[in-house]
C-alpha cells in the first residue's frame, strides 16, 4: 500500500472504497464505506451510553465502551461554521456541520453560491467520491 501522498495519486481503475488506502487502513470502518456506496450516512453509536460519535472508531470516545452499533443517520444537519478559501482555484467552502443526531463533522459545503451560506443553515448530505476511491459525505442546502 502506498503511504506517500495518496490524495495526489491517480484515481484507482475500479472506483470504490476497496482500493482506497485511507479506508483500507481502518478495517473497523468498512461498514461505513460500504453504506456510503449506497448513499447512506452511518453513525457509530454506543450501546452503553447511547450516543453517536464522530469520526467513527473502534472505541466509544464518550464512555470507553467497545459495544458499538452502526445506525443510519438522517443525513440532515445545520452549519456550525464555515470558511470559503477565496484564494483557491476554484474557491471551496470548508465547514463543520452539526448532524441532527448530535455530532459535528468536517465537510465541504457544495452545490450553492458560498455567499448564501450561513451559520445555522439546514443542510443535507450528498456523497461524492474522493480521488482515492471512497465515497465522502459532503453537504448541500436542504
Amino acid at each position, binding site marked *: *500500500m502506498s*503511504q506517500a*501522498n*495518496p*490524495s*495526489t495519486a491517480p484515481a484507482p481503475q475500479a472506483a470504490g472504497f476497496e482500493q*482506497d*488506502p*485511507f*479506508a*483500507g*487502513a*481502518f478495517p473497523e*470502518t468498512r461498514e461505513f464505506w460500504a453504506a456510503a456506496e449506497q448513499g447512506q450516512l452511518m453513525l457509530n453509536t454506543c450501546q452503553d451510553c447511547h*450516543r*453517536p*460519535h*464522530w*469520526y*467513527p*472508531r473502534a472505541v*466509544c*470516545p*464518550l464512555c470507553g465502551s467497545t459495544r458499538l452499533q452502526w445506525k443510519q443517520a438522517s443525513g440532515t444537519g445545520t452549519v*456550525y*461554521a*464555515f*470558511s*470559503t*478559501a*477565496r*484564494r*483557491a482555484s476554484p474557491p*471551496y467552502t*470548508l*465547514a*463543520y456541520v452539526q448532524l441532527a443526531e*448530535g*455530532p*459535528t*463533522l*468536517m*465537510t*465541504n459545503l457544495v452545490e450553492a453560491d*458560498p455567499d448564501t451560506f450561513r*451559520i445555522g443553515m439546514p443542510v443535507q448530505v450528498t456523497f461524492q467520491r*474522493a*480521488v482515492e476511491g*471512497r465515497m*465522502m459525505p459532503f453537504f448541500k442546502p436542504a
Partner: protein
Amino acid sequence: MSLSARACIVGAYEHPTRLAPDKSVAQLHAESALGALHDAGLSLADVDGYFCAGDAPGLSPLYMADYLNLKLKWYDGTESGGCSYLAHIEHAAAAIAAGHCSVALITLAGKPRSSGQATGTAFRAPPVDRPEAAWESTFKWTIGGIYGMMMQRHMHDYGTTLEQIAWVKVAASQHAQHNPNALLRKPVTVEEVMASPIISDPIRRLDCCVITDGGGALVLTRPEIARSLKRPIVKVIGCGQTMNTTQGGYLDLTRTGAQQSGAAAFAEAGVTPADIDYASVYDNFTIMVIAQLEDLGFCAKGEGGRFVADGNLISGVGKLPWNTDGGGLCNNHPMNRGGITKAIEAVRQLRGEAHPAVQVKDCRLALAAGPGLVLGPGHAHATVIFERE
C-alpha cells in the same frame, strides 16, 4: 507537586535570522543552543538534559544530541506543535526538580520561509494511518480555513467584530516597530488590517502570522546553580498543558486548551490573571489571541474582542502589555512554531531587557501561553508562569 522555584530560566536566545537559505536546520538548532548557553554563562559541556520537538532533524533528540555531542542524563522529544517548547519547560522543570538533570537545554529551528512553504493556505495530506485522515483529508482543510471558521463562530456567538479583532494586529505592529529583527516593522491601522486581502473568510492576510526561518533556545537549571550565574533569576512558578481534542464530535470551536493549561498554571503559581504584569500569548491568528485571553481568564468568555480593542494590549497604553517583540504576527514565527519566542520575550521583560519603548516597568510576573497543532482537528496547549526573583 509544585515546581515553584525548583527551576529557573538562565538562558534565552532568539536567533536573529528570518531567512536562512544557506544554513541547515541542524546548524540553526546549534547556533540557537550556543546563543542561549552563552546568555547563561554556561557551555555545551554543562548540559545534561536536552529537549526538542518534531522540528529537530530525525524526529528524535538523538540526532541533535549527536551533532552537539551532548552528554545526557535526560532527554525528551515531546512533539505537540508550536507549544512543544512551553511543554518542554514544564518537563524540564519537573526533571530538574526530580534530580534527573541539572542543566536543561531546549531548542527549536526551521526554515519554512526559504523552502517556500505555503504554511497556512496549502492542504497537506496526512498519512493514511492517522485516525482522522480518512474523514477529513478530502475536504482540503487548511490552517487558515480552520481559524476562519473559529473567527466566524466567535463573531456569531459573542458579537465580536472585525474591528476589535484587527486591534490584535495593530498592537503587534506597534511593538514590532521597535524590534530591529522583526520581519514586519511598519505599524498598521485597523483600517489597513480590514482592507487586506481575504485568505479564507473572514481571515484576512494581516490576521495571519508571518512565515520565517529561524530558531530559539532556552536553558533551565536548579535555583542554586542559577544563583551562581551572573544573569537575573527567572523562576518557573507555574505550568500547565493539555490536549484539546474534537471530543468525539462534540467540539466547541471558540474554546481553546488555554482553559485547562491556564487554570493549571495559575493554580500552581498561586496567582491570578490580574497579577500578571506581561503576557506572551501565541498569535498564529488574531482571533486565537482573543480566545486564549478569554480562556486564560484575563476577561470573561466572549469579552475578548472588547478586551483587546482600543490598544489595550499595547505596552504603555493598555492594561495588558502583550507580545512586546511584535509576536508571530509581525516579528518571528520560526518553523511555524511560536512557543519558544513567547517564553523568550517573557524572560526579556522579567530581566528588564526588552526594548525600552516596550519594557514593562518593574515587571515581576509574566505568562507565556500558546497552542500547538491545529484547533479543530485537535490541538495541544501549554501555559507557563514566570516570576523574577
